[in-house]
Protein backbone atom coordinates (compact mmCIF):
# COMPACT_ATOMS: atom_id res chain seq x y z
CA UNK A 1 0.00 0.00 0.00
CA UNK A 2 1.25 3.46 -0.80
CA UNK A 3 1.35 5.99 1.97
CA UNK A 4 0.15 9.56 2.32
CA UNK A 5 2.66 12.32 2.32
CA UNK A 6 2.28 15.97 1.66
CA UNK A 7 5.88 16.04 0.46
CA UNK A 8 5.06 13.28 -1.99
CA UNK A 9 2.02 15.11 -3.27
CA UNK A 10 3.39 15.81 -6.69
CA UNK A 11 3.27 19.24 -8.26
CA UNK A 12 0.55 17.90 -10.54
CA UNK A 13 -1.53 16.73 -7.57
CA UNK A 14 -0.95 20.02 -5.80
CA UNK A 15 -2.19 21.92 -8.81
CA UNK A 16 -5.39 19.86 -8.76
CA UNK A 17 -5.89 20.57 -5.06
CA UNK A 18 -4.96 24.24 -5.16
CA UNK A 19 -7.98 25.17 -7.27
CA UNK A 20 -10.20 24.35 -4.29
CA UNK A 21 -8.36 26.50 -1.74
CA UNK A 22 -10.39 29.40 -0.33
CA UNK A 23 -9.47 32.88 -1.47
CA UNK A 24 -11.51 34.67 1.20
CA UNK A 25 -13.24 36.66 -1.54
CA UNK A 26 -16.71 35.76 -0.31
CA UNK A 27 -16.05 35.11 3.36
CA UNK A 28 -13.62 37.88 4.30
CA UNK A 29 -13.12 40.50 1.55
CA UNK A 30 -16.81 41.05 0.90
CA UNK A 31 -16.76 44.70 1.96
CA UNK A 32 -19.57 44.19 4.46
CA UNK A 33 -17.59 44.90 7.63
CA UNK A 34 -18.50 47.94 9.73
CA UNK A 35 -15.58 50.18 10.77
CA UNK A 36 -13.10 47.29 10.63
CA UNK A 37 -9.81 47.61 12.49
CA UNK A 38 -8.15 44.23 11.94
CA UNK A 39 -9.54 43.20 8.55
CA UNK A 40 -9.46 46.74 7.10
CA UNK A 41 -7.92 47.10 3.66
CA UNK A 42 -7.20 43.41 3.14
CA UNK A 43 -7.56 41.65 -0.20
CA UNK A 44 -5.89 38.28 0.41
CA UNK A 45 -2.69 39.22 -1.35
CA UNK A 46 -1.47 42.11 0.80
CA UNK A 47 -0.35 40.14 3.84
CA UNK A 48 3.35 40.81 3.58
CA UNK A 49 5.39 43.13 5.77
CA UNK A 50 5.61 45.96 3.22
CA UNK A 51 1.83 45.88 2.74
CA UNK A 52 1.23 45.89 6.48
CA UNK A 53 3.52 48.86 6.93
CA UNK A 54 1.62 50.70 4.19
CA UNK A 55 -1.49 50.22 6.31
CA UNK A 56 0.25 51.79 9.33
CA UNK A 57 1.70 48.52 10.57
CA UNK A 58 4.46 48.52 13.19
CA UNK A 59 3.84 52.21 13.92
CA UNK A 60 2.48 51.24 17.32
CA UNK A 61 5.61 49.23 18.11
CA UNK A 62 7.79 52.13 16.94
CA UNK A 63 5.72 54.48 19.08
CA UNK A 64 6.10 52.60 22.36
CA UNK A 65 9.81 52.02 21.73
CA UNK A 66 10.32 55.73 21.04
CA UNK A 67 11.48 54.95 17.51
CA UNK A 68 8.80 56.86 15.64
CA UNK A 69 10.65 60.15 15.61
CA UNK A 70 8.33 61.79 18.15
CA UNK A 71 10.01 64.13 20.64
CA UNK A 72 10.54 62.99 24.22
CA UNK A 73 7.94 63.87 26.81
CA UNK A 74 8.71 67.45 27.91
CA UNK A 75 7.91 66.66 31.56
CA UNK A 76 9.61 63.33 32.01
CA UNK A 77 12.17 63.32 29.22
CA UNK A 78 11.02 59.80 28.34
CA UNK A 79 10.74 58.79 24.71
CA UNK A 80 8.07 56.33 23.73
CA UNK A 81 5.86 54.70 26.35
CA UNK A 82 6.71 52.86 29.53
CA UNK A 83 5.44 49.29 29.96
CA UNK A 84 2.97 50.58 32.56
CA UNK A 85 1.67 53.18 30.14
CA UNK A 86 1.10 50.50 27.49
CA UNK A 87 -0.82 48.30 29.94
CA UNK A 88 -2.84 51.30 31.14
CA UNK A 89 -3.79 52.11 27.55
CA UNK A 90 -4.99 48.55 26.97
CA UNK A 91 -6.93 48.67 30.24
CA UNK A 92 -8.56 51.92 29.19
CA UNK A 93 -9.58 50.41 25.84
CA UNK A 94 -11.97 47.94 27.43
CA UNK A 95 -10.43 45.17 25.28
CA UNK A 96 -11.62 41.78 26.51
CA UNK A 97 -10.25 38.38 25.56
CA UNK A 98 -11.49 37.34 22.14
CA UNK A 99 -10.92 33.62 22.61
CA UNK A 100 -14.07 32.98 24.58
CA UNK A 101 -13.81 33.98 28.22
CA UNK A 102 -13.94 37.75 27.66
CA UNK A 103 -11.52 38.51 30.48
CA UNK A 104 -10.23 42.12 30.49
CA UNK A 105 -6.90 41.99 28.64
CA UNK A 106 -5.15 44.87 30.40
CA UNK A 107 -6.02 43.39 33.77
CA UNK A 108 -4.62 40.01 32.71
CA UNK A 109 -1.39 41.69 31.64
CA UNK A 110 -1.10 43.38 35.04
CA UNK A 111 -1.12 39.96 36.76
CA UNK A 112 2.33 39.17 35.40
CA UNK A 113 4.90 39.54 38.18
CA UNK A 114 7.01 42.59 37.35
CA UNK A 115 10.14 41.79 39.30
CA UNK A 116 10.36 38.07 38.53
CA UNK A 117 14.06 37.34 38.06
CA UNK A 118 13.80 34.41 35.59
CA UNK A 119 12.34 33.82 32.15
CA UNK A 120 8.74 34.80 31.50
CA UNK A 121 6.69 33.74 28.49
CA UNK A 122 4.04 35.13 26.21
CA UNK A 123 1.76 32.71 24.38
CA UNK A 124 -0.77 33.27 21.64
CA UNK A 125 -3.63 30.80 21.58
CA UNK A 126 -4.36 30.21 17.89
CA UNK A 127 -5.71 26.71 18.49
CA UNK A 128 -8.99 27.72 16.97
CA UNK A 129 -11.15 24.62 17.13
CA UNK A 130 -14.38 25.78 18.72
CA UNK A 131 -17.00 24.67 16.20
CA UNK A 132 -18.23 27.69 14.30
CA UNK A 133 -15.06 29.73 14.73
CA UNK A 134 -12.86 30.58 11.76
CA UNK A 135 -11.67 34.14 12.43
CA UNK A 136 -8.15 33.57 13.76
CA UNK A 137 -7.35 31.61 10.61
CA UNK A 138 -8.25 34.60 8.44
CA UNK A 139 -6.34 37.01 10.69
CA UNK A 140 -3.16 34.91 10.48
CA UNK A 141 -3.60 34.06 6.82
CA UNK A 142 -4.36 37.55 5.58
CA UNK A 143 -2.89 39.86 8.26
CA UNK A 144 -0.25 37.87 10.17
CA UNK A 145 1.87 40.89 11.08
CA UNK A 146 -0.97 42.35 13.17
CA UNK A 147 -0.56 39.37 15.50
CA UNK A 148 3.23 39.65 15.54
CA UNK A 149 3.10 43.38 16.31
CA UNK A 150 0.45 42.87 18.99
CA UNK A 151 2.54 40.20 20.64
CA UNK A 152 5.68 42.35 20.53
CA UNK A 153 3.78 45.19 22.22
CA UNK A 154 2.41 42.82 24.86
CA UNK A 155 5.89 41.40 25.46
CA UNK A 156 7.23 44.90 26.00
CA UNK A 157 4.40 45.71 28.45
CA UNK A 158 5.07 42.58 30.50
CA UNK A 159 8.86 42.41 30.20
CA UNK A 160 8.81 39.10 28.32
CA UNK A 161 11.57 38.15 25.91
CA UNK A 162 10.20 34.91 24.43
CA UNK A 163 6.83 34.14 22.88
CA UNK A 164 5.10 31.30 21.09
CA UNK A 165 2.11 31.27 18.79
CA UNK A 166 0.41 27.87 19.03
CA UNK A 167 -1.57 27.30 15.84
CA UNK A 168 -4.36 24.80 15.17
CA UNK A 169 -2.83 21.79 13.38
CA UNK A 170 -5.66 21.56 10.88
CA UNK A 171 -4.74 24.92 9.37
CA UNK A 172 -1.17 23.87 8.64
CA UNK A 173 -0.99 26.10 5.57
CA UNK A 174 -1.75 29.08 7.84
CA UNK A 175 0.99 27.95 10.22
CA UNK A 176 3.39 28.00 7.28
CA UNK A 177 2.15 31.48 6.32
CA UNK A 178 2.75 32.70 9.87
CA UNK A 179 6.28 31.26 9.85
CA UNK A 180 6.93 33.15 6.64
CA UNK A 181 5.70 36.39 8.21
CA UNK A 182 7.94 35.76 11.22
CA UNK A 183 10.95 35.46 8.91
CA UNK A 184 10.06 38.81 7.37
CA UNK A 185 9.73 40.48 10.78
CA UNK A 186 12.98 38.93 11.98
CA UNK A 187 14.88 40.07 8.90
CA UNK A 188 13.54 43.61 9.37
CA UNK A 189 14.62 43.74 13.01
CA UNK A 190 11.04 43.89 14.29
CA UNK A 191 11.48 40.81 16.44
CA UNK A 192 14.69 39.40 17.85
CA UNK A 193 17.44 41.17 19.76
CA UNK A 194 17.59 44.93 20.17
CA UNK A 195 14.38 45.60 18.25
CA UNK A 196 14.66 48.77 16.13
CA UNK A 197 17.79 49.66 18.09
CA UNK A 198 15.78 50.21 21.28
CA UNK A 199 17.51 47.59 23.43
CA UNK A 200 14.22 45.64 23.74
CA UNK A 201 14.50 41.91 22.96
CA UNK A 202 11.63 39.68 21.95
CA UNK A 203 11.95 36.39 20.09
CA UNK A 204 8.76 34.88 18.73
CA UNK A 205 8.24 31.35 17.39
CA UNK A 206 5.36 29.44 15.84
CA UNK A 207 4.30 26.03 17.09
CA UNK A 208 1.48 23.85 15.85
CA UNK A 209 -1.06 21.44 17.30
CA UNK A 210 -2.10 18.26 15.50
CA UNK A 211 -5.76 17.70 16.14
CA UNK A 212 -6.87 18.08 19.75
CA UNK A 213 -9.69 20.49 20.62
CA UNK A 214 -8.65 20.41 24.27
CA UNK A 215 -5.42 22.27 23.48
CA UNK A 216 -7.51 25.40 23.01
CA UNK A 217 -7.84 25.31 26.79
CA UNK A 218 -4.91 27.41 27.93
CA UNK A 219 -3.26 24.95 30.31
CA UNK A 220 -3.86 22.07 27.89
CA UNK A 221 -2.08 24.23 25.34
CA UNK A 222 0.85 24.77 27.70
CA UNK A 223 1.16 21.01 28.29
CA UNK A 224 1.14 20.51 24.53
CA UNK A 225 3.84 23.18 24.07
CA UNK A 226 5.91 21.25 26.58
CA UNK A 227 5.65 18.19 24.34
CA UNK A 228 3.03 16.24 26.24
CA UNK A 229 -0.57 15.12 25.93
CA UNK A 230 -2.72 18.25 26.10
CA UNK A 231 -4.42 17.45 29.38
CA UNK A 232 -5.36 20.63 31.26
CA UNK A 233 -3.86 21.54 34.61
CA UNK A 234 -5.74 22.29 37.76
CA UNK A 235 -5.97 26.03 38.49
CA UNK A 236 -4.70 27.61 40.72
CA UNK A 237 -1.84 28.10 40.24
CA UNK A 238 -2.74 30.26 37.25
CA UNK A 239 -0.37 30.61 34.29
CA UNK A 240 0.62 34.12 35.42
CA UNK A 241 2.50 32.48 38.29
CA UNK A 242 3.07 28.93 36.96
CA UNK A 243 2.80 28.67 33.19
CA UNK A 244 5.04 27.37 30.43
CA UNK A 245 7.92 25.35 31.97
CA UNK A 246 6.59 26.50 35.33
CA UNK A 247 7.39 30.14 34.56
CA UNK A 248 5.05 33.16 34.62
CA UNK A 249 3.11 33.13 31.36
CA UNK A 250 0.39 35.22 29.77
CA UNK A 251 -1.86 33.63 27.16
CA UNK A 252 -4.11 35.67 24.89
CA UNK A 253 -6.14 34.84 21.81
CA UNK A 254 -4.99 35.72 18.29
CA UNK A 255 -7.70 38.33 17.74
CA UNK A 256 -6.89 39.92 21.10
CA UNK A 257 -3.27 40.47 20.07
CA UNK A 258 -4.33 41.66 16.63
CA UNK A 259 -6.47 44.37 18.26
CA UNK A 260 -3.56 45.83 20.27
CA UNK A 261 -1.68 47.80 17.57
CA UNK A 262 -4.84 49.78 16.73
CA UNK A 263 -5.33 50.61 20.41
CA UNK A 264 -1.77 51.88 20.79
CA UNK A 265 -1.95 53.91 17.57
CA UNK A 266 -5.33 55.48 18.24
CA UNK A 267 -5.61 55.35 22.02
CA UNK A 268 -7.66 53.25 24.39
CA UNK A 269 -10.41 55.84 24.59
CA UNK A 270 -11.00 55.73 20.82
CA UNK A 271 -11.20 51.94 20.94
CA UNK A 272 -13.72 51.99 23.78
CA UNK A 273 -15.76 54.62 22.00
CA UNK A 274 -16.23 52.44 18.92
CA UNK A 275 -17.82 49.70 21.00
CA UNK A 276 -19.99 50.18 24.05
CA UNK A 277 -19.10 50.60 27.74
CA UNK A 278 -17.28 47.55 29.14
CA UNK A 279 -17.23 46.13 25.58
CA UNK A 280 -14.60 48.07 23.66
CA UNK A 281 -13.69 47.93 20.00
CA UNK A 282 -14.68 45.78 17.08
CA UNK A 283 -15.16 42.03 17.10
CA UNK A 284 -14.88 39.56 14.26
CA UNK A 285 -17.92 37.31 14.16
CA UNK A 286 -17.75 34.05 12.25
CA UNK A 287 -21.25 33.53 10.93
CA UNK A 288 -21.99 29.97 9.82
CA UNK A 289 -24.94 27.68 9.26
CA UNK A 290 -28.21 28.69 7.65
CA UNK A 291 -27.35 32.11 6.24
CA UNK A 292 -27.00 33.13 2.62
CA UNK A 293 -23.48 34.53 3.01
CA UNK A 294 -21.48 32.73 5.69
CA UNK A 295 -18.23 34.45 6.56
CA UNK A 296 -16.30 36.62 8.94
CA UNK A 297 -17.80 39.99 9.76
CA UNK A 298 -15.89 42.60 11.76
CA UNK A 299 -18.30 45.02 13.39
CA UNK A 300 -18.26 47.24 16.49
CA UNK A 301 -19.16 45.56 19.77
CA UNK A 302 -22.81 46.20 20.51
CA UNK A 303 -23.97 45.86 16.90
CA UNK A 304 -27.52 44.44 16.91
CA UNK A 305 -27.70 40.75 16.03
CA UNK A 306 -30.34 41.62 13.44
CA UNK A 307 -27.78 43.82 11.67
CA UNK A 308 -25.17 41.05 11.70
CA UNK A 309 -27.71 38.63 10.26
CA UNK A 310 -28.49 41.15 7.55
CA UNK A 311 -24.79 41.52 6.67
CA UNK A 312 -24.64 37.73 6.31
CA UNK A 313 -27.47 37.88 3.79
CA UNK A 314 -30.23 36.82 6.16
CA UNK A 315 -31.57 33.34 6.77
CA UNK A 316 -31.02 30.99 3.85
CA UNK A 317 -33.66 30.40 1.20
CA UNK A 318 -36.02 32.92 2.79
CA UNK A 319 -36.66 30.62 5.73
CA UNK A 320 -37.44 31.73 9.27
CA UNK A 321 -34.85 32.04 12.01
CA UNK A 322 -35.29 29.28 14.56
CA UNK A 323 -32.28 29.36 16.84
CA UNK A 324 -28.79 30.74 17.18
CA UNK A 325 -25.74 29.44 19.00
CA UNK A 326 -24.14 32.84 19.58
CA UNK A 327 -20.58 32.12 20.70
CA UNK A 328 -19.30 28.79 19.41
CA UNK A 329 -20.73 25.34 20.02
CA UNK A 330 -20.10 25.47 23.78
CA UNK A 331 -22.37 28.46 24.32
CA UNK A 332 -26.03 27.79 25.15
CA UNK A 333 -28.41 27.94 22.19
CA UNK A 334 -30.96 30.77 22.15
CA UNK A 335 -34.29 30.89 20.30
CA UNK A 336 -34.29 33.26 17.33
CA UNK A 337 -36.84 35.56 18.92
CA UNK A 338 -34.54 36.20 21.88
CA UNK A 339 -31.49 36.68 19.63
CA UNK A 340 -33.29 39.28 17.52
CA UNK A 341 -33.52 41.45 20.65
CA UNK A 342 -29.81 41.09 21.49
CA UNK A 343 -26.83 43.19 20.60
CA UNK A 344 -23.56 41.43 19.88
CA UNK A 345 -21.48 42.08 22.99
CA UNK A 346 -20.49 40.17 26.10
CA UNK A 347 -23.08 41.77 28.38
CA UNK A 348 -26.15 41.57 26.14
CA UNK A 349 -25.62 37.90 25.25
CA UNK A 350 -24.88 37.03 28.89
CA UNK A 351 -28.08 38.75 29.98
CA UNK A 352 -30.03 36.65 27.47
CA UNK A 353 -28.63 33.50 29.08
CA UNK A 354 -25.76 32.57 26.80
CA UNK A 355 -22.18 33.65 26.11
CA UNK A 356 -20.49 35.68 23.39
CA UNK A 357 -17.65 33.16 23.60
CA UNK A 358 -15.43 33.23 20.54
CA UNK A 359 -18.02 35.15 18.52
CA UNK A 360 -18.93 32.15 16.38
CA UNK A 361 -22.54 32.64 15.41
CA UNK A 362 -24.18 29.39 14.27
CA UNK A 363 -27.54 30.12 12.68
CA UNK A 364 -30.30 27.52 12.40
CA UNK A 365 -33.48 27.87 10.37
CA UNK A 366 -36.96 26.51 11.04
CA UNK A 367 -36.28 23.26 9.17
CA UNK A 368 -33.67 22.14 11.70
CA UNK A 369 -34.15 19.28 14.13
CA UNK A 370 -32.66 20.28 17.46
CA UNK A 371 -32.28 16.68 18.60
CA UNK A 372 -30.12 15.92 15.57
CA UNK A 373 -28.10 19.11 16.15
CA UNK A 374 -27.50 18.27 19.79
CA UNK A 375 -26.57 14.72 18.85
CA UNK A 376 -23.73 15.99 16.66
CA UNK A 377 -22.46 18.35 19.35
CA UNK A 378 -22.66 15.64 22.01
CA UNK A 379 -20.60 13.34 19.76
CA UNK A 380 -17.99 16.06 19.39
CA UNK A 381 -17.54 16.56 23.14
CA UNK A 382 -17.35 12.81 23.71
CA UNK A 383 -14.71 12.57 20.99
CA UNK A 384 -12.66 15.46 22.35
CA UNK A 385 -12.84 14.82 26.09
CA UNK A 386 -9.23 14.27 27.13
CA UNK A 387 -10.26 11.53 29.56
CA UNK A 388 -8.62 13.03 32.59
CA UNK A 389 -11.72 13.70 34.73
CA UNK A 390 -14.27 10.95 35.22
CA UNK A 391 -17.43 13.12 35.04
CA UNK A 392 -16.41 14.43 31.61
CA UNK A 393 -14.90 11.21 30.24
CA UNK A 394 -17.91 9.10 31.22
CA UNK A 395 -20.59 11.78 31.13
CA UNK A 396 -19.98 13.04 27.60
CA UNK A 397 -20.33 9.53 26.21
CA UNK A 398 -23.40 8.91 28.31
CA UNK A 399 -25.07 12.08 27.08
CA UNK A 400 -24.30 11.22 23.46
CA UNK A 401 -25.75 7.71 23.85
CA UNK A 402 -28.96 9.07 25.37
CA UNK A 403 -29.43 11.79 22.72
CA UNK A 404 -28.61 9.20 20.05
CA UNK A 405 -31.29 6.81 21.27
CA UNK A 406 -33.86 9.61 21.46
CA UNK A 407 -33.00 10.53 17.87
CA UNK A 408 -33.37 6.88 16.87
CA UNK A 409 -36.84 6.64 18.38
CA UNK A 410 -35.63 4.58 21.31
CA UNK A 411 -35.92 7.35 23.90
CA UNK A 412 -37.36 6.69 27.34
CA UNK A 413 -39.73 8.91 29.30
CA UNK A 414 -37.05 9.55 31.91
CA UNK A 415 -34.34 10.50 29.39
CA UNK A 416 -34.67 14.27 29.58
CA UNK A 417 -34.34 14.24 33.35
CA UNK A 418 -31.45 11.83 32.95
CA UNK A 419 -29.70 14.17 30.49
CA UNK A 420 -30.11 17.12 32.83
CA UNK A 421 -28.86 15.04 35.71
CA UNK A 422 -25.75 13.89 33.86
CA UNK A 423 -25.11 17.49 32.74
CA UNK A 424 -25.50 18.66 36.35
CA UNK A 425 -22.97 16.09 37.45
CA UNK A 426 -20.41 17.19 34.88
CA UNK A 427 -20.75 20.96 35.13
CA UNK A 428 -18.43 22.46 37.72
CA UNK A 429 -16.91 19.09 38.59
CA UNK A 430 -14.01 18.90 36.16
CA UNK A 431 -10.51 20.36 35.97
CA UNK A 432 -11.21 22.41 32.86
CA UNK A 433 -14.16 24.02 31.13
CA UNK A 434 -14.64 21.28 28.51
CA UNK A 435 -17.01 19.58 30.94
CA UNK A 436 -19.06 22.76 31.25
CA UNK A 437 -18.89 23.24 27.50
CA UNK A 438 -20.34 19.77 26.97
CA UNK A 439 -23.06 20.19 29.60
CA UNK A 440 -24.33 23.65 28.68
CA UNK A 441 -25.58 22.87 25.13
CA UNK A 442 -27.51 19.87 26.47
CA UNK A 443 -29.27 21.88 29.17
CA UNK A 444 -30.02 24.81 26.86
CA UNK A 445 -31.38 22.63 24.07
CA UNK A 446 -33.74 20.87 26.48
CA UNK A 447 -34.70 24.14 28.13
CA UNK A 448 -35.66 25.94 24.92
CA UNK A 449 -36.74 23.06 22.67
CA UNK A 450 -38.07 20.47 25.10
CA UNK A 451 -41.11 19.81 22.92
CA UNK A 452 -38.93 18.53 20.09
CA UNK A 453 -37.28 16.00 22.34
CA UNK A 454 -40.61 14.95 23.86
CA UNK A 455 -42.12 14.52 20.42
CA UNK A 456 -39.40 11.99 19.58
CA UNK A 457 -39.94 10.03 22.77
CA UNK A 458 -43.01 7.90 22.19
CA UNK A 459 -45.33 8.00 25.18
CA UNK A 460 -46.19 4.31 24.70
CA UNK A 461 -42.59 3.18 25.10
CA UNK A 462 -42.86 0.11 27.37
CA UNK A 463 -41.30 0.74 30.74
CA UNK A 464 -41.22 -2.95 31.58
CA UNK A 465 -38.03 -4.20 33.10
CA UNK A 466 -38.69 -7.64 31.73
CA UNK A 467 -36.11 -9.04 29.35
CA UNK A 468 -36.91 -9.11 25.62
CA UNK A 469 -37.27 -12.88 25.90
CA UNK A 470 -39.84 -12.57 28.65
CA UNK A 471 -41.70 -9.92 26.63
CA UNK A 472 -41.84 -12.24 23.64
CA UNK A 473 -43.19 -14.94 25.91
CA UNK A 474 -45.88 -12.59 27.25
CA UNK A 475 -46.96 -11.58 23.74
CA UNK A 476 -47.17 -15.19 22.67
Amino acid sequence: MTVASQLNSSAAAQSVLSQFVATGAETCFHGRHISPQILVGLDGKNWRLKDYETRGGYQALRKILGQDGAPSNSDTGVVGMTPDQVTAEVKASGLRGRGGAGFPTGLKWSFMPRQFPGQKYLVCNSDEGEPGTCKDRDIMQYNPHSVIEGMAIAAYAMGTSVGYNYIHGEIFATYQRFEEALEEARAAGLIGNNILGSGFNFELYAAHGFGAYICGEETGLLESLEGKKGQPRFKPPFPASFGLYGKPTTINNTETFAAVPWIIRNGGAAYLECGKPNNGGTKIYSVSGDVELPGNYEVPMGTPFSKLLELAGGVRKGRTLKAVIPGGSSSPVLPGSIMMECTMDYDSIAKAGSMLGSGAVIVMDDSRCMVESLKRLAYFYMHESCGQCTPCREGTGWMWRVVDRIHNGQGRQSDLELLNSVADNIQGRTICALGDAAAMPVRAMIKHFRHEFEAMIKPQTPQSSASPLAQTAMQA
Partner: protein
Amino acid sequence: MIPEQTKARFDREIAKYPADQKQSAVMACLTIMQQERGFVSAESEKLVAEYLGMAPIAVHEVTTFYNMYNQQPLGKYKLNVCTNLPCQLRDGVGALKHLEQKLGIAMGETTADGLFTLQQSECLGACADSPVMLVNDLTMCSSMSNEKLDQLIDGLKSVEANQS
Protein backbone atom coordinates in the same frame (compact mmCIF):
# COMPACT_ATOMS: atom_id res chain seq x y z
CA MET B 1 18.46 6.03 11.07
CA ILE B 2 17.29 9.59 10.65
CA PRO B 3 18.53 11.09 7.37
CA GLU B 4 20.64 14.25 7.72
CA GLN B 5 18.01 16.28 5.88
CA THR B 6 15.38 15.21 8.39
CA LYS B 7 17.72 15.97 11.28
CA ALA B 8 18.10 19.49 9.92
CA ARG B 9 14.33 19.88 9.99
CA PHE B 10 14.20 18.52 13.55
CA ASP B 11 16.98 20.90 14.63
CA ARG B 12 15.10 23.88 13.30
CA GLU B 13 12.15 22.96 15.54
CA ILE B 14 14.31 22.17 18.57
CA ALA B 15 15.98 25.58 18.27
CA LYS B 16 12.65 27.25 19.06
CA TYR B 17 12.77 26.01 22.64
CA PRO B 18 15.12 26.35 25.62
CA ALA B 19 18.12 23.99 25.46
CA ASP B 20 16.77 21.87 28.31
CA GLN B 21 13.27 21.60 26.77
CA LYS B 22 13.90 19.63 23.59
CA GLN B 23 10.75 17.60 24.28
CA SER B 24 8.73 20.63 23.20
CA ALA B 25 9.65 19.80 19.62
CA VAL B 26 8.11 16.32 19.76
CA MET B 27 4.87 17.23 17.97
CA ALA B 28 6.72 18.97 15.16
CA CYS B 29 9.18 16.07 14.79
CA LEU B 30 6.38 13.50 14.65
CA THR B 31 4.64 15.65 12.06
CA ILE B 32 7.82 15.74 9.98
CA MET B 33 8.06 11.96 10.26
CA GLN B 34 4.48 11.65 9.06
CA GLN B 35 5.13 14.03 6.18
CA GLU B 36 8.16 12.05 5.07
CA ARG B 37 7.02 8.49 5.80
CA GLY B 38 3.24 8.73 5.58
CA PHE B 39 2.56 7.60 9.11
CA VAL B 40 4.14 7.41 12.55
CA SER B 41 5.47 3.90 13.14
CA ALA B 42 6.81 2.56 16.43
CA GLU B 43 10.23 2.79 14.80
CA SER B 44 9.68 6.49 14.03
CA GLU B 45 8.59 7.09 17.60
CA LYS B 46 11.75 5.42 18.84
CA LEU B 47 13.95 7.54 16.58
CA VAL B 48 12.24 10.74 17.71
CA ALA B 49 12.50 9.63 21.34
CA GLU B 50 16.23 9.02 21.01
CA TYR B 51 16.80 12.30 19.23
CA LEU B 52 14.92 14.33 21.84
CA GLY B 53 16.05 12.35 24.88
CA MET B 54 12.54 11.18 25.72
CA ALA B 55 11.14 7.83 26.78
CA PRO B 56 9.55 6.10 23.76
CA ILE B 57 6.31 5.70 25.71
CA ALA B 58 6.15 9.49 26.23
CA VAL B 59 6.38 9.92 22.46
CA HIS B 60 3.73 7.24 21.95
CA GLU B 61 1.44 9.12 24.33
CA VAL B 62 1.67 12.13 22.04
CA THR B 63 1.07 10.13 18.84
CA THR B 64 -2.05 8.54 20.29
CA PHE B 65 -3.45 11.70 21.90
CA TYR B 66 -3.59 13.92 18.82
CA ASN B 67 -6.09 13.00 16.12
CA MET B 68 -4.01 13.88 13.06
CA TYR B 69 -1.16 11.42 13.56
CA ASN B 70 -1.62 8.36 11.36
CA GLN B 71 -0.83 5.34 13.44
CA GLN B 72 -0.78 3.06 10.41
CA PRO B 73 -0.20 3.47 6.68
CA LEU B 74 -3.07 5.15 4.88
CA GLY B 75 -3.97 5.85 1.28
CA LYS B 76 -1.83 8.25 -0.73
CA TYR B 77 -4.47 10.94 -0.28
CA LYS B 78 -5.99 11.29 3.18
CA LEU B 79 -9.34 13.05 2.91
CA ASN B 80 -10.75 14.52 6.12
CA VAL B 81 -14.30 15.81 5.79
CA CYS B 82 -15.68 17.96 8.59
CA THR B 83 -19.16 16.98 9.78
CA ASN B 84 -19.35 19.06 12.95
CA LEU B 85 -22.53 21.08 13.49
CA PRO B 86 -21.72 24.20 11.39
CA CYS B 87 -20.72 21.89 8.53
CA GLN B 88 -23.66 19.55 9.17
CA LEU B 89 -25.89 22.56 8.55
CA ARG B 90 -24.16 23.16 5.21
CA ASP B 91 -23.97 19.74 3.60
CA GLY B 92 -20.81 18.46 5.30
CA VAL B 93 -22.45 15.11 5.97
CA GLY B 94 -23.70 15.06 2.38
CA ALA B 95 -20.13 15.61 1.16
CA LEU B 96 -18.90 12.68 3.23
CA LYS B 97 -21.70 10.45 1.93
CA HIS B 98 -21.03 11.53 -1.64
CA LEU B 99 -17.38 10.56 -1.29
CA GLU B 100 -18.33 7.22 0.24
CA GLN B 101 -20.39 6.47 -2.87
CA LYS B 102 -17.88 7.91 -5.30
CA LEU B 103 -14.97 5.96 -3.81
CA GLY B 104 -16.99 2.87 -2.92
CA ILE B 105 -15.76 2.80 0.66
CA ALA B 106 -17.12 3.70 4.08
CA MET B 107 -15.57 6.42 6.18
CA GLY B 108 -12.45 5.17 7.91
CA GLU B 109 -11.57 2.93 4.97
CA THR B 110 -8.98 3.06 2.18
CA THR B 111 -9.68 2.34 -1.48
CA ALA B 112 -8.34 -0.96 -2.84
CA ASP B 113 -5.88 0.86 -5.12
CA GLY B 114 -4.36 2.52 -2.06
CA LEU B 115 -5.08 5.99 -3.37
CA PHE B 116 -7.68 7.39 -0.98
CA THR B 117 -8.43 7.16 2.72
CA LEU B 118 -11.69 8.79 3.77
CA GLN B 119 -12.20 10.07 7.31
CA GLN B 120 -14.82 12.03 9.17
CA SER B 121 -13.22 14.84 11.13
CA GLU B 122 -14.07 17.30 13.85
CA CYS B 123 -13.99 21.07 13.40
CA LEU B 124 -11.29 22.07 10.91
CA GLY B 125 -11.77 25.76 11.74
CA ALA B 126 -13.04 26.79 8.32
CA CYS B 127 -16.76 26.87 9.11
CA ALA B 128 -17.68 29.64 6.65
CA ASP B 129 -16.26 27.57 3.77
CA SER B 130 -18.37 24.48 4.44
CA PRO B 131 -18.37 21.80 3.14
CA VAL B 132 -14.65 21.63 3.86
CA MET B 133 -12.15 18.84 3.44
CA LEU B 134 -8.52 18.71 4.53
CA VAL B 135 -6.27 16.76 2.16
CA ASN B 136 -3.06 15.20 3.51
CA ASP B 137 -3.06 17.42 6.61
CA LEU B 138 -2.22 20.46 4.50
CA THR B 139 -4.59 21.58 1.79
CA MET B 140 -7.95 22.88 3.01
CA CYS B 141 -10.43 22.46 0.17
CA SER B 142 -13.40 24.78 0.50
CA SER B 143 -17.05 24.96 -0.51
CA MET B 144 -16.88 21.38 -1.75
CA SER B 145 -20.10 20.78 -3.65
CA ASN B 146 -20.60 17.29 -5.08
CA GLU B 147 -19.41 18.57 -8.46
CA LYS B 148 -16.20 19.90 -6.95
CA LEU B 149 -15.65 16.68 -5.04
CA ASP B 150 -15.96 14.77 -8.32
CA GLN B 151 -13.52 17.13 -10.01
CA LEU B 152 -11.03 16.72 -7.19
CA ILE B 153 -11.19 12.91 -7.11
CA ASP B 154 -11.14 12.60 -10.90
CA GLY B 155 -8.29 15.10 -11.11
CA LEU B 156 -6.14 13.22 -8.60
CA LYS B 157 -6.95 9.91 -10.25
CA SER B 158 -5.80 11.18 -13.63
CA VAL B 159 -2.62 12.60 -12.11
CA GLU B 160 -1.89 9.15 -10.70
CA ALA B 161 -2.78 7.41 -13.96
CA ASN B 162 -0.37 9.66 -15.85
CA GLN B 163 2.42 9.03 -13.39
CA SER B 164 2.19 5.27 -13.41
